[in-house]
């Protein structure tokens, strides 16, 4: 998912859940900041490096892929972007422990960990709510990929086609992948950028949905492909439908966090809250565009009647850097950092307690 959903759509969901305009902005900023809080950024603001919620391309280029290096990558990506669905999943056939460990890190919605994630944010500052909403939303967009480098899990092949609504069914169009970061995805001709094929199991190119390009990040797209782990069974991914579920599940989760609902349960979506705007939201989700910030922003402003400030990464840097050591904890970023460390620790601990060593042990 991109800024359009993590910032603007999260703002809309928070507002629909009952938060005020200012609170919704804080939640949205925190949700989007998860995609920017790298070690490089933390070093710049003199924050603790263990709070990193993402890695920059340059950091990944230099990342080690030995056991310790892989654990570091897995901690960040599994915790914040590819939350595992089922840490005790079984594979039909007999397989090695290493394979099973990687298989169990496959991301998906409505797992036990997403419930733990939302529950952990209960009675916590808004920054923790934002982090939880980022993680929850990504379980929908990034499902079927794992937050650890793995060829045998995350690879895709030439069986990859885009589906276009056509009458009662869908028309298929083969997707062509290139590896040109400088060229934007060509939506008209279904030419998308993905990461290079690397036969090395632990190559960084095999992290997450790199081999499927940005397709999981676009709300409008429907596609069919063969996941490397799927025993030759095709998966049809319907992003408009999944993104709608993500949106309505975020509203449900935030209503729980506000205390309006007694418990957060799996497979619960607040479809009532979006009822009056269903057509409008579907229209935004289905529009073929690289980024939908403008549409979501207009919708957010229509909902709250307030101006939704654009996301500015450095909005709270000065407050954090100019605060004394004892006051830092209570700054906006101080709370975000605390929330990120707590969430990461919970996920690593759960993965470790399931007998999976790929993320190491929580400190």
């Amino acid at each position: 998912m991109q800024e359009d959903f993590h910032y603007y759509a999260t703002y809309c969901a928070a507002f629909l859940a009952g938060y005020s305009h200012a609170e919704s902005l804080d939640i949205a900023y925190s949700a989007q900041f998860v995609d920017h809080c790298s070690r490089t950024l933390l070093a710049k603001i003199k924050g603790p490096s263990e709070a990193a919620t993402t890695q920059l391309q340059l950091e990944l280029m230099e990342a080690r892929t030995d056991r310790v290096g892989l654990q570091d990558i897995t901690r960040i990506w599994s915790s914040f972007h590819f939350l595992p669905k089922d840490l005790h999943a079984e594979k039909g056939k007999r397989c090695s422990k290493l394979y099973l460990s990687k298989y169990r890190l496959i991301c998906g919605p409505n797992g036990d960990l997403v419930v733990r994630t939302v529950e952990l944010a209960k009675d916590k500052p808004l920054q923790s709510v934002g982090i939880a909403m980022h993680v929850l939303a990504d379980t929908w967009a990034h499902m079927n990929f794992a937050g650890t480098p793995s060829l045998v899990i995350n690879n895709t092949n030439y069986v990859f086609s885009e589906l276009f609504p056509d009458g009662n069914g869908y028309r298929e169009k083969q997707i062509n992948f290139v590896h040109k970061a400088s060229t934007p995805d060509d939506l008209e001709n279904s030419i998308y950028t993905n990461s290079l094929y690397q036969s090395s199991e632990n190559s960084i190119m095999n992290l997450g949905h790199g081999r499927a390009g940005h397709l999981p990040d676009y709300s409008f797209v429907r596609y069919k492909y063969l996941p490397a782990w799927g025993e030759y069974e095709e998966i049809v991914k319907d992003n408009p439908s999944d993104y709608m579920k993500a949106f309505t599940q975020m509203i449900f989760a935030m209503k729980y966090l506000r205390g309006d609902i007694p418990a957060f349960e799996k497979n619960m979506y607040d479809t009532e809250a979006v009822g009056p705007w269903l057509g409008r939201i579907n229209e935004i989700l289905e529009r073929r565009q690289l980024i939908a910030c403008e549409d979501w922003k207009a919708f957010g402003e229509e909902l709250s009647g307030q101006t939704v400030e654009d996301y500015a990464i450095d909005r709270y840097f000065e407050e954090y850097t100019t605060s004394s050591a004892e006051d830092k904890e209570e700054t906006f970023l101080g709370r975000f950092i605390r929330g990120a460390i707590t969430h990461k620790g919970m996920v690593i601990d759960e993965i470790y307690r399931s007998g999976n060593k790929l993320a190491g042990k929580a400190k």
Partner: protein
Amino acid sequence: MNIFQRIKKILLALMMILAALIFLVSPADAALLTIIVILALGLAAKGIKDIIFYFRMARHMVGGKLILFQGVLVLDFALLTLSFYNIPKIFMLLYLAGVHAFSGVVEILRAMEARRTVDGPWKLKFAHGVVNIALAAVCMIFISNISIAVLIYSAGLVYSAGVMIFDSFRRTSFVLIE
């Protein structure tokens, strides 16, 4: 490429330069045999690694059998290379020149693919492939004069090593989807 991959590439290039120097300084049969053995061991290690990876991980993966086939093929090449231990020097050199030419063809194919689908330079890769094939061809033309053929083959090794070292210091194009 991370720092370890760069160091690995430089070390491989240095080994290639060392092999070329051995050929030039002491073009005895023993030197050629040593290279044959090293090549065979390298191929065998790669083949066995692929086969183990298949049984441990890739057998559950869509298209994973390709890794098994690749492993078996490379291991087969390793055994073939080792079987050249007892043949006359001229055939050993022919085989090595053939391997050099094959790597040139692979390099050209990769360059063509890079031109089509990848950002960044492809011309160096293409030129590397062409020069490799040309050197192998010249080596085969002069195969009757072993000392000249060895000289040409050594020049090819040094050239390839130079390109590898240059490549390892270059900023690499990196497409990663977050």
